[in-house]
């Protein structure tokens, strides 16, 4: 390596406190998000495993067959799936320096997320009216815990998207900060893939 680089390295024994500093060649912020997503996989794995373990063991109703409305939930799943598309289009927009499209796609993604949450709220209230609650049986406990935590993740993602949108509107999000949109996108897509699993395992796979 060039001699000119040796001296500065010697003067800086400690890594600089710089947001883009990397000792691995990977951006540490992005790496941190991936590590978080890996740990969140385990979290949801535990919840899904618990749901499957308790599956068909409820001593009283209602059962999944009594309450699930597959066509309705399919639409919700489709909405969340399409929000992943709008999220990735938002990332493509900021990477091309297109601020207007970035804001449009971020807002669209947040709206789709809110639509999903609204659908989940309606589903929960309907189930509750039909007698399913957190305490009534094992199905209710494991179902509400699993889908409730997923909904909380979606809600967090919606707030994050709205924050990014506001930051873009007030010129606090320049194209150089596309990494922040990418990291938010990773979180949002993760929420989507978790729902892909929940939709199949919880709703479609018969008891």
């Amino acid at each position, binding site marked *: 390596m*060039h001699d000119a680089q040796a001296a500065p390295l010697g003067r800086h024994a400690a890594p600089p406190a710089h*947001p883009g500093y990397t000792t691995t060649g990977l951006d540490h912020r992005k790496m941190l998000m991936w590590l978080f997503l*890996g740990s969140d996989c385990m979290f949801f794995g535990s919840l899904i495993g618990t749901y499957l*373990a308790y599956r068909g063991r409820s001593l009283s109703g209602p059962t999944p067959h009594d309450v699930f409305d597959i066509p309705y939930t399919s639409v919700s799943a489709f909405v969340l799936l*399409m929000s*992943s*598309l709008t999220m990735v289009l938002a990332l493509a927009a900021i990477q091309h320096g297109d601020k207007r499209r970035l804001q449009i796609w971020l807002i669209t993604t947040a709206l789709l997320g809110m639509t999903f949450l609204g659908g989940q709220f309606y589903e929960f209230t309907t189930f509750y009216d039909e007698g399913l609650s957190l305490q009534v049986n094992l199905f209710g406990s494991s179902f509400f815990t699993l889908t409730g935590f997923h909904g909380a993740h979606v809600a967090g993602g919606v707030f994050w998207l709205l924050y990014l949108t506001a930051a873009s509107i007030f010129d606090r999000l320049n*194209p*150089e900060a596309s990494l922040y949109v990418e990291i938010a996108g990773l979180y949002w897509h993760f929420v989507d893939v978790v729902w892909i699993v929940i939709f199949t395992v919880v709703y*479609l796979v018969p008891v």
Partner: protein
Amino acid sequence: MVLDSKALEWASQHGLDTAALKKAKVPIYGKWYFPELPADVPLVNLQTGEIETFGAGFRAGAILYVKEEDLKRARLGPYAVPEPAEEAQEQAAEAAGPEPTAVAAAEQPATSSVATAERQGPSRAATVVAAAPPEPSRESDPEGVEHGAGGAHAVAQVIPHEQPHPQSGTYITIAIILAVITAVEVTVYYVQALAPVLVPILLVLSSVKFALVAGFFMHLKFDHKSFLGFFGGGLAIAGTIVVSLIFLFHGVSRAAGGH
């Protein structure tokens, strides 16, 4: 290595003539895709203006490098041809007295040193770069481009390879495939003839959807494999937890006579 919009944007923010760079189609090494640097070829550090040469196996990182011969060919950076008016100004300044250009440059952040070098040609570039402060203001670069002394970390043998992300058309195609798979999932749920094989079909379709979102939307297919390792590791543990719980509970249930 392509000269993409990000590299152009970065270069623009650091005072490089991006239009000329684009027109000349000068390959840039570093910052976004961590390409391997050409071995034993003089490279210009676009941040400091220094000419550096690396052996085989080095990859560019946060600092952009361009082959010296490419810059010479394109007449960019330190090899820019001075404008006649600027040349006249320089001559006038020299005639007016010994006011050193280096002093003026030293008052500017290092990020402007390349731009200053551009305007002054090769003979002045070395002086300006040497006089520029080694550590620029960090607030001016929220993205985290490494500068000055810390910039030595920008080139290392461990810096990985990343491929460019796909275009919007690819994303829309993937979304259509995902929508179709979801429709197929719901359809097979209602087909009684498929009831015996419903679970395997649903699991396969769900896995395909999962892989498409993770691979294309989350860019795992294109980003460094370490990210796949972080996510895949967590996923593998999650899968183990699910399978273990199912076997633990349902296995115990069978052993106890179904209770």
